[in-house]
């Protein structure tokens, strides 16, 4: 199965811009399905970005983050070809991780 994480990391000069889109339902636990039962909460709680062995960004998410969540940020200290490790864990213990190259 292709990874649930799509990432675009582009470095220009010392600043690397990172965009990520993650395939995840991000269910709030407040929505009913067609049969009228509550769909249990199922959402990513923590999303971590590491580059050159250092955390460059940590996201703590609640149930108000959109389905197939997206986040964009930039950081200094990365350069073309560096590895960017991205990993997330959700409230059901699910997780995924990939390592992308900075373009």
């Amino acid at each position: 199965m292709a990874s649930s994480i799509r990432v675009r990391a582009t470095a220009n000069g010392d600043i690397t811009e990172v965009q990520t889109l993650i395939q995840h339902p991000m269910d709030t636990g407040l929505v009913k399905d067609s049969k009228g039962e509550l769909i249990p909460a199922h959402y990513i709680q923590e999303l971590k970005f590491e580059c050159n062995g250092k955390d460059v960004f940590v996201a703590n998410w609640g149930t108000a983050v959109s389905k197939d969540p997206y986040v964009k940020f930039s950081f200094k200290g990365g350069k073309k070809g560096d590895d960017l490790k991205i990993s997330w864990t959700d409230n059901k213990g699910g997780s995924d991780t990939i390592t992308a190259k900075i373009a």
Partner: protein
Amino acid sequence: MKARSAVLLASLSAALVAFALTSPRVVAADKVDPATDAKAFQNFFFQKFPDVKHEDFVNGPYSMNADMKRQWQEKEEFPPYEFALDAGKEMFATPFKNGKTYADCFPNGGIGIRQNYPYFDTKEGKVVTLELALNRCREANGEAPYSYVKDEMASLTAYMAFTSRGKLMDIKIPDDPRALEAFENGKRYFYTRRGQLNFSCASCHVQSPGERIRAEILAPALGILNAMPIYRSEWSGMGTISRRFVTCNSQTRAVPLEPQADEYRDVEYFLSYVANGLPISGPGARP
């Protein structure tokens, strides 16, 4: 009860006749002339929205409202249909059990051809849409057809649309009376009021594009299918042309026809033909 409704119907039809007489264009030229219709259709929108660039019409509501356009451009940086696109690309390349793939069913291997769909099949004497052709390809290769309103069909059409992005819509109407009839039938469907709300497609997409229907901005009818299939935030999922037609019907409280019914195929033929010359921008993201 009987007498009262008879009187009522009589008064109503009288009002209707009066209305028909007063409307200026009561005499309809019976000869079907798609080229003139398309020119008139496009000019209507170009004049109604002079400062909207012609190719922008394919961006639907975002061509009508700056605040919405900004939200759209932010989404387009990393669009929500990205997953459907990747899935579609993978499915397109995955061979059927008999070893063939979709590429064997389509001209040019199915790449960059979306702008020629739907086309009129002179053998069958009917309009064939991209979604129909995909399912026929599956059935011809011993595979079960996909639902017209679910994700698999949306992913496939998303990928095929993506390979045609920027190409201009190029729908042909052969010199065949049945093709002209299909075009006319599509046009009739487009302008016919239906459902308890008594709306036609034109009530919203011709009379009031750019205006709001509750939170949503109405898209202009010109180029409205160029961005298909679309990821709709409202559905938080992909929508094929079939799904859009079916949901639009039920919103006006009309019972939808079965997906890929003749009327739907014809109205898609009409809407695509009058958008000839405008770029394909699918897959699209919409509210």
